[in-house]
C-alpha cells in the first residue's frame, strides 16, 4: 500500500531542501561582490558605534604586576626568515634604525638608543587575539605620538603605516620560510616578490596615550618571538593590529597604494581594518 504523502512529510522534505539551499547559498553570498559589501555592513556599524562611544583618550584597562601572564604567547611570525632581519639579530639590533617618512616634514632614522632616550610609557595590558585567546603583558616603549611630533606631520597626513621585517609569503605563491635565499632574492626573484607584514592606524589611534612603540616586554628587551626590536601596541584593538618587527613608519594620506590597499596584511585577506571587536 502506498502512503499518500502527508503534510508533515512534505514539510520536513521542504525544510531539508531549504536548509541545504540556505547553507550552499550562504557561501555563494559571501563569495559575491554585493554579498561581501552587505556582510561588511555589520563591521561598518561596529566602527561607527565605537567612534561614537570612544573618546580619543578612553583608556584600555591596565592591570597589576600580579596579572601578567606567565608566558606571553607568541603568535604569527615568531622568527622572521629574512636575511636582513637575521643580520639585525646578529648585531644585537645595534644597526637597527627605525625609518619615519612619508608625509612628514622631518624624516627620522632612530636607533634603539635614540628611542630609549625619548619619553617612555609602561603599561600592563591585555592582548586579545582575533582567534579568541588573551594574554597579559607589561610593555615599555615610546608613545607613537612623541615620534610623530618630532617628525612633524604634513597637513594631509591621515594614516600611519607600519612596515615590518617579516616576509609572510611570496607574491608568486611561495610559503613563509620556505626558502630564505629566495625570499632575499627580493623583487622579481623566481618565486616572486616577498609580501611582508604591514599594518596601519589612523591619527586618532596614533596619538592615543596608550599607543606605543614597545621595546621592552615584562621588564626585559623584547624577544624575537614577540617582535624585537620594536612592536606596536594599540591597546583598544585586536592582536593583529599590533605589528611586530616594525622597521619603517610611513605617514600617508590614503591606504590604497600599499599592499592590496586595505590597510594591512590581514585586512588584505578579509579581516576588518578597525579591529575593535
Amino acid at each position, binding site marked *: 500500500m502506498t502512503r499518500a504523502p502527508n503534510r508533515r512529510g512534505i514539510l520536513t522534505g521542504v525544510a531539508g531542501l531549504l536548509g541545504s539551499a540556505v547553507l550552499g547559498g550562504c557561501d555563494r553570498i559571501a563569495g559575491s561582490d554585493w554579498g561581501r559589501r552587505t556582510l561588511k*555592513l555589520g563591521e561598518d556599524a561596529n566602527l561607527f558605534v565605537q567612534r561614537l562611544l570612544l573618546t580619543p583618550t*578612553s583608556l584600555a584597562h591596565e592591570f597589576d604586576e600580579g596579572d601578567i601572564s606567565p608566558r606571553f604567547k607568541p603568535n604569527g611570525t615568531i622568527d622572521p626568515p629574512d636575511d636582513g632581519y637575521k643580520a639585525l639579530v646578529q648585531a644585537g639590533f645595534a644597526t637597527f634604525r627605525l625609518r619615519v617618512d612619508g608625509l612628514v616634514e622631518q624624516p627620522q632614522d632612530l636607533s634603539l638608543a635614540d628611542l630609549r632616550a625619548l619619553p617612555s610609557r609602561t603599561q600592563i595590558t591585555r592582548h586579545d587575539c582575533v582567534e*579568541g585567546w588573551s594574554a597579559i603583558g607589561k610593555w615599555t616603549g615610546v608613545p607613537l605620538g612623541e615620534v610623530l611630533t618630532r617628525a612633524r606631520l604634513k597637513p594631509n597626513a591621515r594614516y600611519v603605516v607600519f612596515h615590518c621585517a617579516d616576509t609572510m609569503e611570496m607574491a608568486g605563491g611561495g610559503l613563509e620560510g620556505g626558502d630564505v635565499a629566495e625570499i632575499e632574492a627580493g623583487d622579481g626573484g623566481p618565486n616572486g616578490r616577498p609580501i611582508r607584514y604591514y599594518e596601519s592606524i589612523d591619527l586618532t589611534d596614533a596619538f592615543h596615550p596608550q599607543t606605543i612603540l614597545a621595546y621592552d616586554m615584562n621588564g626585559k628587551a623584547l624577544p624575537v618571538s614577540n617582535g624585537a626590536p620594536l612592536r606596536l601596541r594599540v591597546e583598544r584593538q585586536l592582536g593583529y593590529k599590533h605589528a611586530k618587527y616594525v622597521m619603517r613608519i610611513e605617514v600617508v594620506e590614503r591606504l590604497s597604494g600599499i599592499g592590496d590597499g586595505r590597510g594591512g596584511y590581514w585586512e588584505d585577506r578579509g579581516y576588518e581594518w578597525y579591529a575593535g571587536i
Partner: protein
Amino acid sequence: MAASTTRRPDERIETIRRRWIFRHPAVIRAAHWINLVCLAVLLMSGLQIFNAHPALYWGSASTFDAPLLAVTNDETAEGAARGIVRIGDHTVDTTGWLGLSTAQGQATGRAFPAWITLPAHQDLATGRRWHFLFAWAFFINGLIYLIYGIESGQLRRRIVPQRDQIRHLGGSIREHLTLTFPKGEEARRYNTLQKLSYFVVIVLLLPMMLLTGLAMSPGFNAVLPLPALFGGRQSARTVHFIVTNLLVLFTLVHVALVLVSGAWNNLRGMVTGWFVIETTKTSDPGKTSYPGKTSYPGKGR
C-alpha cells in the same frame, strides 16, 4: 455540533466548539521568524569563530596549559586519529562530531564539524562578518520587539505568569511531564512554565549574549569595563559559549513542545496570527442547551 436529537433527561451533551482567536500580532510574528534566522546564523558563524581557538578559560587571560574545556584531537594507542573533548582532566572521545570530522570526504581536525559552521570551511574573517552583521539584525529586531511588546502590553502577557498561574506551578510542571496541555479557555494564554522559560530567555539569556559579546571587544572595554561583570574577558567568552548552549537547549525544547502541543495550530498561529482553541461545553442534565447559545461573538471566520 454532533448532538443526538432524542435524549434521556439525564443525558449530558458534549459540544466541542472550535474558536478562532487572533493570537500573534504581525510585529510579534515578524520578530519571531527574523529572530530564528538571526540566531541560526549567529550560532553557526559563532561556531566558526570558536573553531579558530577551540578552548575556553576562566579569568582575564588564557591559561593555555589548563583550559576549562578544549576541543582537539590526538592519537589512540593504536595510532588512529581521534577527536576529543577535554573538560578539566576528563577526556571524551568525540570522533566524527567534535575535534575530528569529515569535511569534503576527508577526516579533518576541526572543533565543530563543517556542516554546522558558517562558512563551512575554516574562514575566521568571513565567519566574523556573518556574526557581526546578524548580531546587528538580532539587536535591532530585539529592540523593536521589546518596545512594541512593552508598549502594547504583549510582552507582559507573554512572559509574566499571572497570580493564579504561580499558585498552580505544580500543575504546569505535571502537564509538561505528561505532555497534556491546557485546552479550552485556559489555552488562550501561555502556561506558567512557558511564560517562565520565555522570561528567562528574553530578560536574561539574550541580553547576556549581547553583554558577553561586547565584553570580548577591546574597543568597548575602553568605554565600559564589561569584562569585570563576568570575571574577565576569557570568562565572558566562556559564558557566551555556555549561554549559547542554553539557547540551543531552549530551542530544542521549544520546537519539541510546539510539535507535541498541536504542531499545525501553533505554526499557523505564528505564521498567520490565528490560533484555534477548542472549548468543550457540557450541558446540564435535563436542561436544554444548544451550541449556538454560547457562540463566541469575537473575531472569527
